[in-house]
């Protein structure tokens, strides 16, 4: 979780209020999406909850107290949206049980390493081999599917999926390593 505690500044005017919200929301956008995605595990559903949640966050922004942590405040609202979405989609099969969902939410609320992990990710990207950098660009930047990358590189889809898994593992290990180095 980020320690995003930018104040609402002088939010006495509607323009200042919306400016403050946009600044805080944009800075926290990916983190909020991660939070939703980790629980619902489905892109379409995460997109829908994200969209609804952003409206609710703006609607309730007047209740956000100045000089407090926006991320924590947003997490409370986002989690309620996730729970209400789960209740609404009763046939929803692909989700964690209620107790594990609560455990995970509690754990995430204590997480405070997002910023340093993102920073480490940028450095680790620079340490990838040219082949993995190319894969990263195609898969994550150009948004190509495994099938498309397979066609481009004349490899099998299975091989591309394995390579992407290897790419993620390499980056994850690198981020963990950088984190350990920073703690030394």
């Amino acid at each position, binding site marked *: 979780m980020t*320690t995003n*505690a*930018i*104040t609402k*500044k*002088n939010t006495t005017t*509607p*323009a*200042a*209020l*919306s400016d*403050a919200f*946009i*600044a805080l929301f*944009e800075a926290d*956008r*990916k983190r909020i*999406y*991660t939070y939703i*995605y*980790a629980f619902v*595990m489905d*892109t379409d559903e*995460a997109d*829908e909850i*994200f*969209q609804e949640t*952003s*409206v609710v966050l*703006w609607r309730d922004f007047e209740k956000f107290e100045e*000089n407090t942590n926006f991320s924590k405040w947003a997490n409370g609202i986002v989690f309620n949206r996730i729970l209400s979405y789960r209740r609404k989609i009763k046939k929803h099969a*692909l*989700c*964690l*049980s209620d*107790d*594990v969902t609560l*455990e*995970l939410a509690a*754990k995430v609320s204590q*997480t405070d390493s997002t*910023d340093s*992990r993102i*920073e480490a*990710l*940028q450095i680790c990207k*620079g340490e990838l081999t040219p082949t993995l*950098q190319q894969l990263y*660009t195609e898969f*994550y930047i150009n*948004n190509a599917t495994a099938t498309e990358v397979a066609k481009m590189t004349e490899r099998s889809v299975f091989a591309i*999926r394995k390579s*992407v*898994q290897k790419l*993620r*593992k390499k*980056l*994850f*290990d690198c*981020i963990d390593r950088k984190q350990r180095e920073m703690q030394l």
Partner: protein
Amino acid sequence: MNRSDKFEKIRNIADAICAKEVNPEQINNLDNLLRGDPDAQQFYYDYIEMHIHMKAEVGPSMEVVRRRLQVDEVIFRPSTHNTENPQIATPTTTLNQITHHSASRRGVPIKWLIISILLTAAIAAVFALGFLHNEKQAGVAELFTEDALRIEGQGKIESNRIYPGIYSAIKPVTMMLTSGEELTLAKNTFIKLYNSAEIEIIRGHLSVKQATGKNLIFNTPSFTLHSGGEEISIDLTKQQAKVISSGTAHIQPKRWRPNHYWPFESDSDRVADYAGNAFGILSTGVTKVNGLVGNNAFLFNNSANARINVGSGGGTVPATGSFSVIDGVTIEALIVPHFKGQESVTVDNYVPEQDQIFRKDQTDKHHRMLLSLKNARPNSHIWPNNKIKGNTIAFGMYLIGHGYHTLLLPLDGKQGRPSLKQLKDGKAHHVVASYDVSTGLKAIFVDGKMQASYQYPKGTKMISGGSGMANIGNSPNRKDDREAYAGIIDEVAFYDFALPPYMIKQHYEAAMKGKNYFNVNLADGSLPLNINIPIPENEVVYIDSQTGLINRTEPIAQ
């Protein structure tokens, strides 16, 4: 053991989630693996978080836009109290809302689309009614030169009275506005008359004499000028607009805001960006001190942790993000350097001291952009003079067709250049690096004066932006202290255009008076949308056509 190996089963399921191929059985397994195991839960969340942050775009295609609507609505309805005087209600509503444009399956709510169309139509109707209403009045000026104006758009000339509309001068024209000022248009001048106080000049040359003290507003493609009730001359016949004012005129340029501005005045735990969204993260080698301007500045302790990370600006690949520029660039800061200019030569390596004031990196490093203090040695990147040795101010950036080039300003005290000793006198110094694509001029300014420059072919484009981080006070690609800044930095600004020399001098002079560059109130945490720049009195003022900012001035006699 790596966490990714320790939690291999969770990783495999997370990979399936990332690939959108997870099945119910895997979710059940994940549930069991996460249950009661905080480390496993942390691993799962970190893995998903990394996957999301690797993606260039996440979530629905949606942007957050502040739309502020000022709506005048005109309603005609029968009055129950006075049937002879139909009541006209003109309520004014200010709406302030966040609008979400989405391409998801739910889409944009149709009602907002309809409301937007209706509001636009209402505004257009109000303008049209206003225009028609004005036409019924006595016109906006009286023409002194007959058969000199041609109606180019909606307009009317009747008994030498000119009504709102679009006109061109087929020969020099003089007219008197209803408020008494004499307005002269040169041949081929093209104007849009809104009313007797507001005129748009599309091209040509216009002057106002016999000023009455009433403020007149002149709109041009790159700036809006307020006459301040004084005589004024506006010449748009050349590439640079030329303005002469006899009094208190000011302009509002169309483009003046930096992409990012960190005046270091925020009390939050982030370094607030007063112009954009690049909020900075402080590292431990940076401490708050009294401001060179305003209340706060930051002292950088020359260590590996002497840095403020202001992010990538949202860039993913080169030429994306808010640090990506098209028309040019300006990097501006106030500094009190403690740079020693030391050389440390080891047996197999020469390590020059370099203190980064600002550096935006790319993972491949070629598209980096930096402003630093540097102990230089001959290097193929240095251009034009790659023989320069010693302490310098360095401005590096990537130009298409040339590659990465660094312009150096030797701090040798020769030919009017500052020496390092002068720069280290303990006072604040204003350093600016700029590159203008249209002119091809790359330059370094110190304390308001251009001290080093190089002329590239006009139109030479640059590449910047991308996924690398930008740091104030260090190199984002270095985790050691080799490029760490020592000293104080304040008022850092990044623009996507070249600030004209006149404005750089103005910024310097404002800073020396203890004001921010723009001489505006920053109490609400952001730069305003418009600023007023006074026009120097009785001087020929040249205005940059791209930005609407003052480029230079000269005495009228010239």
